[in-house]
């Protein structure tokens, strides 16, 4: 069985679109297309990726303008029909602005742009985004953002936690969620969440920058591999590079 077809949306100012395309097309061997923001066809994609970058120059608020582009109208209705959508960094901000994920991403509490490898604890394994991970597993994936400070009201936060919608949290090398391990001040160290039905996921860290073995860390590949496997595509995974070089370490819990 062939795997899912991926559509990577390109907004003016997207800058991680080619990284995502490279990982999905060349490393995972999946059918992958770029989707221009002015287009209104998703070209029968099974999974939509909203990549990182600075769509529309981050004017007004990050992701606020991108949300109104023609392609986003299609992405929103695709998601509402149960389609699978992944937002990375700026893509996460766009998903929140579009109301596909709850909450908002504010200016980092340190006020600076943070570009660094961070540790993420997998809070929930077995979702279509984390099927290849173990619960409590620690992934090393880089962040690169100025507005990644996740905020939501108390009710929303309680709902997210109660439904198991928090997928990744910033942690230290032992898996503890300490304030020091939190690069941006996010509530409850939240780095990535999904919607209630488990079809839309947003995360600030960049798994596409930690997938090619050439770059030294392939922990991010687990997320793409999970996605592909969730479509029952074992064959496509054989095209994947050796994941034995992963730098993942187990939680000491």
């Amino acid at each position: 069985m062939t795997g899912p077809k991926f559509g990577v949306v390109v907004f003016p100012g997207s800058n991680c679109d080619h990284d995502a395309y490279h990982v999905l097309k060349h490393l995972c061997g999946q059918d992958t297309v770029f989707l221009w923001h002015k287009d209104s066809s998703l070209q029968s994609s099974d999974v939509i990726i909203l990549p990182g970058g600075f769509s529309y120059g981050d004017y007004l608020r990050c992701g606020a303008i991108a949300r109104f582009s023609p392609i986003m109208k299609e992405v929103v209705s695709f998601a509402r029909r149960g389609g699978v959508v992944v937002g990375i960094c700026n893509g996460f901000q766009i998903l929140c602005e579009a109301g596909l994920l709850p909450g908002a991403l504010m200016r980092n509490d340190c006020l600076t742009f943070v570009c660094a490898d961070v540790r993420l604890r997998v809070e929930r394994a077995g979702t279509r985004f984390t099927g290849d991970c173990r619960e409590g597993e620690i992934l090393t994936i880089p962040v690169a953002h100025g507005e990644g400070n996740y905020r939501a009201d108390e009710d929303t936060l309680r709902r997210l936690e109660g439904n198991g919608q928090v997928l990744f949290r910033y942690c230290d090398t032992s898996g503890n969620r300490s304030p020091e391990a939190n690069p941006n001040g996010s509530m409850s160290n939240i780095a990535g969440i999904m919607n209630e039905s488990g079809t839309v996921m947003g995360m600030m860290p960049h798994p596409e920058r930690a997938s090619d073995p050439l770059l030294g860390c392939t922990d991010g590949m687990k997320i793409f591999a999970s996605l592909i496997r969730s479509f029952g595509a074992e064959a496509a995974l054989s095209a994947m590079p050796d994941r034995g070089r992963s730098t993942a370490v187990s939680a000491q819990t």
Partner: protein
Amino acid sequence: MFRASINITLRSSILDPQGKAVHHALGNLGLHAVEEVRIGKLIELRINCRTEQEAKTIAEEACRKLLANPVMEDFTCTIAREAEGA
């Protein structure tokens, strides 16, 4: 013609890291009487419509749909008639 002045501020329940940093800097300048700093943005719209009420409705719709994010921001709209020929 009307001019809408829209003030967008972070909701009071939300920590404003920019405001905090500026507050700290003001303290370093010796302005210790300043107890709090909140930073927001000002957006001005020129609106071509007949009545002040209509202008307010349009400005508020703009705020709700795009200009402010209700998760973290509050807004106020002040409407003023523009002088003819301005």
